[in-house]
């Protein structure tokens, strides 16, 4: 999520009040202490960083806000990012374990509390996870945390044994000097009295013991025994379960409610109206779900979105014929096209997409004694904290967030207006109850609930000379801005251009003379949201299929043609060459199998994918995908492979099947029977090759997604002669 942003600008603005969100609902103010920790790894105001720990802390062996070592020999890593499956809990633990020289078996990850000062994401200035930033922004900080703990342990050992610190060695959790030996846990209490070093010495890459090697995820066991607790599983004494009936049309409000039948359902405790809908509170989940169906609600739809998606797309297509705001202008695109021998013209249509994580949205919240306590898979803790504080009229620090493991997100839980958390807070507030309340969403709530990858239309015209060289490229993009009107606007929108709408096109690395990129930012009922790889979900598709078409029209090899336009971009060409080589690009394929390629940079990582596709019963069947990845230093190669395998499947399901449509403002789909995603039998065999690199590590949660759609489309074009420009393929590919 988040896409491309000018991080430095965001950071400097982190102290400013957030503007009103699109519902005009709540003004977010960022927490205190917004000064960035540049050059430091722990804020000076964190007391434990300043000097010796207090006696009580010594007993528990707490070292820093990021690492705790306790006498039971457990090393707890306080993970500031949310783990929704991407593996960051294991990732940050790896960084600490390596510098500390701990034994892998003693490492225990735990999610950090909400505290913007201690746990902010340096990329956003707030505590939160997204934009594939987690490893990049924590790489130094968590290594320093491990290195600091190691130095403190070393000094404690030297003191205990009366030896010089230089003679003390730490390896696999065992501290030794000569014949002396102790565990980390045995030295924890003494080490906690040592001042935290301000500039702990880090290992050089050749000294890494865990970084760069594949080893098991720390959450594998709990997730294979049924023991892992997600928000959906939280059970607290006297807890009530809530469901919320939301307006069927975006922008609708409650006019009147007849709740007699709902209240008659066994187990129902209360029915309340909030600014967002009508909530049913019950003793059991099923009662809350069933009773909601019994509500008779009259909605005021006078201000609601009433368009159908077809009309919306027709509006967008009309806009694509008119000049928009200029996002990039280089040379004279129109002039270049005017003198071309041949012009390729294409209009692309991308649908709304739901994130549909397996665990639907949910939140448990209790308000008692002036404090709000929350249990949820929080992805933007600072925003969630501020939104909740505002609703209850309390200070952000009086909102305690217990971040839980999340059952997927793909961008959905990192919401600029904390929608489902705000819903829960409002229900708690309106009822005035002090019991914990768990709001659950059904799958239908999720698919119909908005917060989609927005509909986008691209209109592209490319001029070619008689040798097939590009003479001009004119590109218009039409769609909703994800961040305009949200807390993230000031960081991402520049001169009226939302960077996430044009990323991947306006910054294309291809050597294209005479290029103009324009943007029309639209308004529509469904709220737009970052969806795994954000703008790249549509921009990579357009760029990589158009470049491929240009190569085909010019009679050039798709790989060689790309390489010729990427001479100044070694990391692009590196992955492209590696993927082509591993896929056997130059070798013939069995009859009926076609190949396509795409290469794209997103979140500072570079991925090329070669797809091998067969046409079966008039539909593309992707058999094999060869991916090459350059994401800097590979902290955990197996997890990188897992993220790319998953990203390929995630992107493939979307381009083949997924779409959310509206008829007169009402969403047509509701569950996995109508909102189709990739299923087991459609998963291709994915091979992932990692380019060895000494560059700083960059993102991997998202970058595997953008190239798969165009790689498959390019293979389909070879096999069928059709360039698919209306997504998903179920709509855009017409065979036989």
């Amino acid at each position: 999520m988040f896409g491309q942003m000018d991080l430095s600008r965001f950071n400097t603005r982190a102290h400013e009040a957030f503007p009103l969100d699109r519902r005009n609902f709540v003004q977010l103010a960022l927490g205190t202490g917004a000064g960035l920790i540049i050059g430091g790894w722990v804020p000076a105001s964190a007391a434990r960083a300043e000097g010796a720990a207090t006696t009580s802390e010594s007993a528990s062996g707490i070292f820093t806000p990021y690492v705790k070592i306790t006498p039971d020999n457990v090393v707890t890593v306080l993970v500031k990012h949310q783990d929704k499956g991407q593996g960051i809990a294991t990732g940050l633990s790896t960084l600490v374990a390596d510098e500390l020289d701990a034994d892998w078996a003693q490492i225990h990850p735990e999610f950090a509390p909400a505290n913007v000062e201690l746990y902010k994401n340096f990329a956003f200035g707030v505590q939160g996870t997204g934009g594939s930033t987690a490893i990049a922004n924590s790489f130094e900080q968590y290594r320093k945390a491990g290195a600091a703990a190691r130095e403190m342990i070393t000094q404690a050992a030297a003191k205990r044994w009366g030896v010089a610190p230089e003679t003390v060695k730490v390896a696999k959790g065992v501290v030794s000097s000569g014949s002396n030996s102790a565990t980390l846990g045995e030295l924890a209490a003494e080490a906690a009295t040592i001042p935290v070093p301000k500039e702990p010495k880090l290992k050089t890459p050749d000294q890494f013991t865990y970084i760069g090697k594949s080893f098991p995820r720390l959450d594998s066991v709990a997730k294979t025994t049924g023991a892992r607790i997600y928000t959906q599983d939280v059970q607290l004494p006297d807890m009530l379960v809530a469901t919320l009936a939301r307006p069927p049309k975006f922008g609708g409000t409650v006019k009147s409610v007849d709740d007699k039948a709902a209240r008659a359902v066994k187990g129902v405790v209360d029915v309340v109206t909030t600014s967002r809908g009508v909530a049913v509170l019950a003793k059991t989940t099923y009662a809350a779900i069933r009773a909601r169906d019994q509500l008779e609600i009259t909605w005021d739809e006078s201000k609601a979105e009433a368009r159908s998606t077809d009309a919306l797309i027709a509006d967008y297509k009309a806009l694509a014929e008119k000049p928009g705001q200029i996002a990039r202008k280089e040379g004279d695109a129109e002039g270049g096209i005017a003198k071309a021998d041949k012009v390729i013209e294409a209009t692309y249509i991308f649908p709304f997409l739901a994130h549909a994580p397996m665990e639907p949205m949910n939140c448990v919240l209790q308000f008692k004694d002036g404090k709000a306590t929350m249990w949820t898979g929080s992805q933007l803790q600072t925003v969630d904290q501020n939104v909740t504080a505002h609703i209850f009229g309390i200070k952000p620090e009086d909102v305690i967030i217990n971040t839980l493991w999340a059952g997927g997100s793909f961008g959905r839980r990192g919401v600029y207006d904390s929608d489902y958390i705000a819903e829960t807070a409002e229900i708690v507030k309106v009822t005035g109850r002090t019991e914990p309340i768990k709001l659950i969403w059904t799958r239908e709530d999720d698919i119909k609930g908005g917060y989609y990858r927005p509909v986008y239309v691209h209109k592209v015209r490319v001029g070619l000379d008689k040798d097939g060289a590009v003479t001009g490229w004119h590109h218009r993009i039409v769609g909703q801005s994800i961040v305009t009107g949200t807390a993230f606007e000031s960081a991402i929108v520049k001169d009226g251009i939302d960077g996430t709408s044009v990323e991947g096109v306006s910054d294309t690395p291809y050597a294209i003379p005479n290029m103009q990129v324009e943007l029309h930012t639209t308004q529509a009922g469904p709220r737009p949201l970052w969806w795994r790889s954000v703008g790249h979900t549509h921009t990579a598709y357009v760029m990589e299929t158009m470049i491929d078409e240009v190569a085909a029209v010019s009679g050039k090899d798709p790989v060689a043609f790309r390489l010729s336009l990427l001479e100044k971009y070694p990391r692009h060409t590196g992955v492209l060459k590696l993927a082509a080589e591993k896929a056997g690009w130059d070798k013939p394929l069995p009859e009926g199998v076609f190949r396509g390629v795409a290469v794209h940079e997103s979140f500072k990582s570079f991925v090329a994918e070669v797809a091998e596709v067969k046409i079966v019963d008039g539909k593309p069947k992707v058999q094999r995908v060869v991916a090459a990845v350059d994401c800097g230093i590979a902290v955990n190669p197996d997890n990188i492979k897992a993220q790319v395998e998953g990203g390929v499947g995630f992107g493939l399901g979307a381009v083949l099947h997924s779409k959310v449509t509206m008829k007169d403002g009402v969403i047509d789909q509701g569950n996995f029977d109508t909102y189709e995603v990739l299923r087991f039998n459609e998963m291709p065999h994915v091979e992932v090759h990692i380019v060895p690199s000494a560059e700083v590590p960059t993102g991997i949660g998202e970058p595997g997604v953008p190239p798969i759609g165009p790689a498959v489309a390019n293979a389909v074009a070879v096999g069928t002669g059709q360039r698919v420009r209306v997504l998903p393929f179920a709509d855009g590919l017409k065979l036989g």
Partner: protein
Amino acid sequence: MTKFTINGREVTVTSEDDTPLLWVVRDELGLIGSKFGCGIAQCGACTMYLDSQPVRACVTPVSDVAGREVTTIEGLSGPVAEAVRGAWQKLDVVQCGYCQSGQMMTAAALLSEIPAPSDSDIDNAMTGNICRCNTYQRIRAAIHSAAETLKT
């Protein structure tokens, strides 16, 4: 009131007859390993065994299980279960993990019926279980790996 056996233990539950088994097991019996993903038997996250046959607990009324044996992920045991769990851990199949109880229940049922399944057997058995992290490739590898373990 419905009486049945769950993971070898006899229980009597008070949920109304039409309450889906999933909510009875999660809310009334407190076994939370089986997940809610869709509520209409489309995703398989709630998969349990009813007399050793996999069923979608989200659409199975509790009255249907009276006098029968229910098994959930918490009670999944024996050589096949251990092979499946071991393979899942060895290959680091999980990502978010939310669907994996259902995936493993379905995989173990497949291996109980077909000890050395082909890729197409695996496709047939697993296509009803959705994973949005798209861990399908590793699930396939883990099923083959578990089958190997069971051979020896």
